């Protein structure tokens, strides 16, 4: 008996490791289940559109309603896209909504209060966001603070900074050239900001799916140790991801400032949860289990379709919070269920 093998305690769940096993069927089933899973959200989305079109043909099924739904969510789309970059690398960025607020407020303060040209104001806002991203990375990657803690702190801190630089008041009257470029001018009846979101979506999708460094970001997120031993500079990728998410936050702030022509210091934090809801809901579709820009796109517009439809039916504004919160929970629960390792309730209580 030369080959009697011991399973290595602590490394594997014995006895599976030691035995020759036939090709497992679970994998094959998982793939077909995933194929069905991919399409659930787009199908549900289409069904929701049809449902509201039938119920509210005069208000829901109009070009202006669709144009407004598509354009109004551009900033949320950009925030959710920004979130999935560090999420892919295994980090959270809870400061992104405050970064958007900082960006809009810097533009407002410099352009309106200090009469800077809009381009210069935007440049300073982006530099500030870049600096926040670098600072986040120093704290998370350099000092080793958990990203969820570090960025929660940073987000709260920036909320205070925004209140400080704005004197706690909304600033309106931002240059019309910005609102023209963002919302007033349109293409095919849809304001330009929608297309900006689409372009970012396509660029990020290209980077994550088709560029080697985008795939390395995924490796870093799935296993820091495997990535490190595979020669990937884990710290550089995490740093890059946190800086990128801050820049996306900055762009979202730019779009908000352009859409409203103003900067309101208290309105930004409400973007954080919908952003996460869209990111996680998006990870249940297109490529289940992964954060994809295409998934985010579907999720953002599915969520706004549902909310808009319900509001047209007479629901109050609280329906937004209910919808976003439920979407976050349901999407993460779906992801857990489809991952295959679900303990039975009984075993959890034992």
């Amino acid at each position: 008996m030369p080959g009697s093998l011991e399973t290595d305690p602590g490394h594997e769940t014995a006895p599976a490791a030691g035995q020759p096993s036939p090709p497992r069927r679970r994998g094959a089933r998982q793939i077909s289940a995933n194929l069905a899973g991919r399409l659930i959200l787009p199908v549900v989305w289409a069904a929701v559109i049809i449902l509201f079109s039938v119920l509210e043909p005069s208000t829901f099924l109009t070009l202006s309603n669709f144009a407004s739904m598509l354009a109004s969510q551009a900033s949320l789309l950009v925030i959710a896209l920004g979130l999935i970059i560090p999420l892919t690398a295994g980090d959270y960025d809870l400061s992104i909504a405050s970064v958007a607020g900082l960006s809009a407020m810097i533009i407002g303060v410099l352009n309106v209060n200090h009469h800077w040209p809009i381009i210069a104001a935007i440049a300073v806002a982006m530099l500030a966001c870049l600096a926040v991203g670098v600072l986040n990375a120093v704290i998370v990657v350099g000092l080793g603070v958990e990203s969820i803690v570090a960025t929660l702190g940073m987000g709260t801190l920036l909320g205070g900074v925004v209140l400080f630089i704005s004197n706690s008041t909304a600033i309106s009257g931002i240059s019309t050239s910005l609102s023209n470029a963002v919302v007033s001018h349109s293409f095919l009846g849809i304001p330009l900001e929608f297309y900006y979101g689409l372009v970012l979506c396509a660029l990020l999708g290209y980077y994550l799916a088709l560029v080697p460094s985008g795939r390395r970001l995924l490796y870093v997120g799935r296993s820091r140790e495997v990535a490190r031993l595979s020669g990937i500079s884990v710290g550089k990728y995490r740093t890059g991801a946190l800086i990128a998410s801050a820049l996306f936050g900055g762009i979202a702030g730019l779009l908000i400032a352009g859409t409203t022509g103003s900067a309101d210091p208290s309105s930004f934090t409400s973007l954080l949860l919908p952003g996460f809801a869209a990111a996680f809901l998006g990870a249940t579709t297109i490529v289940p289990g992964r954060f994809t820009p295409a998934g985010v796109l579907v999720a953002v517009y599915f969520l706004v379709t549902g909310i808009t439809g319900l509001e047209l039916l007479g629901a109050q504004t609280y329906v937004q919070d209910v919808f976003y919160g439920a979407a976050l929970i349901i999407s993460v629960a779906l992801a857990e269920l489809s991952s295959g390792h679900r303990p039975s309730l009984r075993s959890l209580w034992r």
Partner: protein
Amino acid sequence: MQAGQQPPGEVLLDAGEFAKSFGTTRALVRGDLLIRAGEIHALVGHNGSGKSTFIRTLAGYHDPDGGRLAVRGQEVPLPIRPGGAASLGLAFVHQDLGLIDSLSVLENMSLTRLATWRGAPFIRWRQERLAARRDLRQLGADLPLDTPAGSLRQVDRALVAAARAFAALGGDAGRVLFCDELTGYLARKEVEDLYQAMRQLTARGDAVVLVSHDLTEVLDMADVVTVLRNGATIATRRTSDISLDDLSSLLVGDSAAVPQLTQEQVDQARRDSAVADQPLQVSGLTADRVDGVQFEVRAGEIVGLTGLVGSGHEEAVETLAGALPATAGSICIGGETWDLAGLTPRGAHSRGVGWVPPSRLAQGLIASLPAQENLPMLVLSRFFRRGVIRWPQVRNHTREMAVALTVSPPDPRLPVQALSGGNQQKELLGKVLELSPRLLLLSEPTRGVDIAARATLWRLIEAGAARRYTIWTSTDFDELASVCDRVIVFSKGRVSTQLSRESLSVEAIARACLAA
């Protein structure tokens, strides 16, 4: 059983004819163990001899296929149900100890009790302190209760785990404590302290079973030794009645079966005749547990590195791979020399050094990702043309690789976690071979895989060995004797013995490790 002279104590545990198979692998063929009160009983045997399986069966972790068990004269029905071992007075401490390093000694001691808390609605910490201090004193350990467990010496951590396991038992004598390879990472002084603590238990009529690799330690400090080989109990002797030589003979056997792979022997002969002129040289390698090591590998040669657990051969390979920082040392391949201090995994890759790490899922592959994203991980840029990763090509390439590696099924979209251990290991080897390394480093490349997969892995590694340098670490002496041209034995961070092809046998390697 051939227990030596007059039995010194009452029989606490009598296990006979334990058997356990996993699939077609017979891990335990006939395990016998007789434990008497007041003895420290060592259980020795090579990797794969069935020690761990035996102990896990006694702990109720595995259900045995057959066997009988009596505890203090009472027949016990098998299998032992989970948790049933404690009520029989059997306690188990595993190698990883099961301590939470960030919690205090006191909190760790209270862990099991609190896990099944049925008492008052609040914790009486004063009583917990007293109990913890009393339980530790049973082992003669007087440890600061408020210190984090992680900051203790290794041996003291082991004592905390042992005291905790012991305290969970009922009764106050006639208990048996099983310790699975606690001494591997301990310094000599710490090993002595551990045995000293165990003496406190045996003096009261309990017994201790220690699984160990170190025969010298066993002979010096244990009372009785039981030897397992190839899944069967070979002998039980009093340590006073047996010499080191006799014990290692028992352990190794007279004619340890070496798997025959004739094609490979042919290859090996060819390699021996074609000794290249530029050997690889490692010199002055110093790192954690490695102390100024130097050795050579000839082109086309497969060199095995081995030693007892913790002797530094694993760490030596990790520093060559850039995975573990070296404090000093250099390597020279074909006239190119580079510093090992400050070497990164990427630096190693760029110089043509590939490493198959020992833990395939924690270090090698990403379990949740499919083969097509694992196999080409190191060479993804190769498929990046005109601004796009050519995924269809990646997929085809992965399928071809998987077929060549005999991965079953060779589906490039199947997540690695859906494959068996052997197939995962083939994919990990494939991932590293994608680099076409000049130097291939293998750390336990066949650990926990079945026999068929092991033979395939050997063949895959040997197939290209003539074109590169290969360094292979393993604690499976069978494997080393079968595949290596030369074996370098480490002891306490240094090279202690080199065995050339002619003198290479399972027994020779075992003796060299044990004598070191």
